[in-house]
């Protein structure tokens, strides 16, 4: 292993894998690690690179990860292959773009029976943008449903890549994986010749928190050399740190003397929080800095916001510390304290997208055992005020007085949906209902590819769920932000027993307000249990009620027989009732169960 950094550039390949969820990216990565002997058999656990529970369960990669493979090729030479495993989801599009910039080539992995999906498209275009050479791999080619010829044709038509020499493999059985290793060596280019003598110039690809080592930073060196003892400077944040360890991941961290141009590796430098490192930033040596930063650096920008509140108000401090800990390892979400009249103390959190929101919520409840109430997700609105100023609004509760608002702008996205033809009608209808504007519709065999421009606020609710259900899970969806547009938006409030529930207020398009209000009232009617009095539920815009339902009063809830032998049982039931009340939120006289806040947003039909 001592020869690691002495590998000549021509024997280094930096590559990533582009694939749709479930098409076998992680399985292929595992197989590559296994076949190059990077990990002992006993160290292999399924899907090594997806190390978070959620990643493994959902079959997705959230954080980029990397592994250095040592490969003796058929040409008799020894190669170092650096695999960067990129996040496969659009919420992390910027992270993907940085990871791709750190490599020269990509493996495009497509399921030989499923074909190209929406996410594959977005990521492969990014790889093409990054000037990657691309090796096409058809996975699961051994399955009876595989149609490699049809899928090759599809790749050529949809993506415009030559798929004639696509490799047919089975990552699961290992069949054809040797050919993949050879193709990486023969088809992908080595890193461009950098200047060892020039000042250090490296790109910050990713970073994560390790309980023992602190923050570990993944870098791609462009020029110069990085070694222990150097004081480096992050040019975007202007922070300086002494490097105390330089290494490569096999995927275990192995310390090396230095990292030179073209190499991919990690360093540690007593950095306390991942938030101190910005993906895409340029790292240089403090006393001998490079002249210019790498292009394309931008700080993470939250796109979707929601309030997170503990179900039990006593858990607020636990929530604060849990969010702090998560933030150690995920600088891309933001949080600030929020107070809600109804929900008490909590946090307003910003996320890169909906999946990111779901992941953070799930990690909070799973890893920290917290019961949370999440408020309606909101996008970032731009308020153009009558006095000429513009403010950003993350929370409908902060909506300024309407008479002071000249106009409201909302974010739009460009969505790509791929679907079997039979579901297209329903999907078009869904997009139309959500104020979508169709920009393209084409066919690839029996699959339709449709692009829509959609307001993001129509997507944050239950668009994914609806799309999945109306296409029986066959449609795939991807999006990119597509600027701001003015919209006729109004704030809708939900009143329960005449009291506004701030956690449920939201901005909606005026034309859709009444329908959404009606659906929410109907849903809440089923979600809030009967009380000892009747409860009106109203949706209102300004002072005007646009929808109304009534929960009738509970009429009977009494135990018929209660004698000497029943007291203990009754008292235990009462204790349970009291415990249950803790899981409810009190709005005036009304108790709303925690699930109601989540369920009411899943409006359905």
């Amino acid at each position, binding site marked *: 292993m001592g020869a690691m950094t002495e590998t000549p550039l021509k024997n280094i390949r930096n590559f990533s894998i582009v694939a749709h969820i479930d098409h076998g990216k992680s399985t292929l990565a595992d197989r590559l690690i296994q076949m190059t002997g990077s990990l002992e058999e006993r160290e292999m656990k399924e899907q090594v690179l997806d190390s978070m529970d959620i990643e493994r369960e959902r079959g997705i990669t959230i954080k980029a990860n990397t592994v250095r493979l040592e490969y003796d090729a058929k040409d008799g030479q020894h190669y170092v292959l650096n695999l960067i495993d990129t996040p496969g989801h659009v919420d992390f599009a910027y992270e993907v773009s940085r990871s791709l910039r750190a490599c020269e080539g990509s493996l495009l992995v497509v399921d030989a029976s499923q074909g190209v999906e929406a996410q594959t498209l977005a990521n492969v275009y990014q790889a093409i943008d990054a000037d990657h050479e691309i090796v096409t791999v058809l996975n699961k080619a051994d399955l009876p449903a595989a149609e490699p010829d049809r899928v090759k044709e599809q790749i050529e038509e949809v993506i415009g890549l030559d798929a004639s020499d696509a490799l047919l493999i089975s990552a699961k059985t290992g069949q054809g994986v040797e050919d993949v290793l050879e193709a990486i060596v023969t088809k992908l280019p080595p890193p461009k010749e950098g200047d060892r003598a020039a000042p250090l110039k490296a790109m910050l690809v990713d970073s994560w928190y390790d309980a023992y080592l602190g923050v570990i930073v993944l870098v791609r060196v462009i020029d110069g050399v990085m070694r222990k003892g150097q004081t480096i400077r992050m040019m975007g944040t202007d922070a300086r740190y002494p490097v105390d360890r330089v290494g490569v991941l096999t995927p275990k961290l192995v310390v090396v003397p230095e990292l030179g141009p073209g190499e991919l590796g990690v360093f540690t430098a007593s950095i306390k929080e991942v938030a101190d490192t910005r993906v895409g930033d340029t790292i240089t040596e403090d006393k001998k800095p490079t002249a210019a930063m790498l292009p394309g650096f931008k700080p993470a920008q939250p796109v979707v916001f929601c309030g997170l509140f503990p179900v039990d108000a006593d858990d607020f401090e636990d929530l604060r510390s849990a969010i702090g800990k998560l933030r150690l390892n995920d600088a891309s979400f933001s949080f600030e304290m929020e107070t809600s009249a109804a929900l008490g103390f909590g946090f307003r959190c910003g996320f890169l997208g909906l999946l990111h929101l779901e992941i953070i919520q799930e990690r909070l409840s799973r890893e920290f055992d917290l019961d949370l109430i999440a408020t309606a997700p909101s996008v970032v609105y731009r308020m153009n005020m009558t006095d000429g100023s513009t403010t950003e609004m993350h929370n409908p509760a902060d909506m300024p007085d309407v008479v002071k608002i000249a106009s409201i702008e909302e974010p739009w996205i460009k969505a790509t949906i791929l679907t079997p033809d039979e579901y297209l009608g329903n999907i078009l209808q869904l997009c139309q209902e959500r104020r979508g504007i169709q920009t393209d519709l084409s066919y690839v065999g029996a699959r339709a590819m449709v692009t829509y421009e959609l307001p993001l606020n129509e997507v944050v609710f239950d668009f994914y769920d609806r799309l999945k259900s109306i296409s029986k899970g066959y449609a795939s969806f991807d999006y990119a932000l597509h600027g701001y547009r003015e919209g006729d938006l109004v704030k809708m409030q939900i009143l329960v027993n005449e009291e506004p529930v701030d956690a449920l207020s939201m901005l909606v398009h005026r034309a859709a307000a009444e329908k959404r209000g009606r659906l929410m009232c109907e849903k809440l009617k089923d979600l809030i249990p009967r009380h*000892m009095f009747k409860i009106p539920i109203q949706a209102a815009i300004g002072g005007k009620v646009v929808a109304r339902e009534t929960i009738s009063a509970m*009429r*009977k809830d009494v135990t018929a027989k209660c004698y*000497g032998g029943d*007291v203990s049982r009754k008292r235990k*039931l*009462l204790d349970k*009732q009291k415990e249950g009340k803790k899981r409810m939120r009190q709005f005036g006289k009304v108790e709303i169960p925690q699930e109601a806040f989540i369920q009411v947003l899943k409006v359905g039909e």
Partner: protein
Amino acid sequence: MSALASIDSAPPRPLNGDDGSPGFGIYIHWPFCAAKCPYCDFNSHVRHRPVDQSRFVEAFLREMETMRGWTGPREVTSVFIGGGTPSLMQAGTVGALLEAVDRLWGLPDGIEITMEANPSSVDAGRFRGYRAAGVNRLSLGVQALNDADLKWLGRLHDTDEALKAIALARETFPRLSFDLIYARPGQTPEQWEAELRQAARHAADHMSLYQLTIEDGTPFKALYDAGKFEVPDPDRAADLFELTDAVTAEIGLPAYEVSNHAVPGSESRHNLTYWRYGDYAGIGPGAHGRFVGDGGKRVTITERHPESWAARVIEHGHGVVEEEALGAGAQGDELLLMGLRLVEGVDLARHEMLTGRALDTSRIAQLQEQGLLEPVANSRIRATLSGRLVLNALIAELAA
């Protein structure tokens, strides 16, 4: 008697001997039944060989002695022999139990001694013997006056037998109550009202009118979950409850508890002790007791299985398998759970004394405003009729 005269003279001591105190009752549980009814979740057991009653009497007596040691000397205000089916006991067995109560605690003259009985002719044949043994109040499990429903409820008697048993019991005992179960599948208000009025013509001084409840672990629960029958929904059940309240008030047996109706002065003294959160010793398999001892209120719960209970009693002198010392909060909750079932309500001063803190007055005010609670004399409050209908929710609100 004129209204004026009644102000000066103390009211006559009622038939049930009630002086308004919580009292101290003795409960004895006979756990055997000839057959298990599909709605019943009580501790009852069917034996296909004759039960050796003398062996059980020996165990009852042993456990009573031990309980007497725990309660110390107390003035007994009622005795209740429940089950199971106590009318499967020989009159001599009942006599032996009552003699033991008299020997250990003393049985003051005229105190209420109730026994539960089934209306089948075999059981009715023993009524005179029970009376001779000292029982002065019978509680008959009539359940319905309609043969089809009796059969569905798994009862072994028919309407004719029930009416004969009622007549015989009225001749034999000074006081009589019987149970009916209503809100049966498909039962209309008209049908129930007719049956209730018919029952009232046969009633003596007391009726227990229970809405059918599908209890966990019963055959009815399995059938109900499988969709084999439906019971009236809460709204229709509430209508039936209100109807019951109105009809019983009209015929002179108004409700004094959620499911119990009596001529005033003929309330069940024994059950009042439970609802007033008084003390009681529980003897026999699966019996619960609650009494002051060791400086606090203690709960005793005995082994449910009859033969295992008897074996324990012979070995340890008692069959208690669970014991609990009740804290202040638990006692306060239990007082509310039981006391608010009564039309006479519950004394807030007593609640405060038990728990050391006052109930939230704003909550009480809010529940009053909703028409669910109302003040009665002094520091007492009670649930209104609408309040009694939602008592579980009401108490949860009050005790939260």
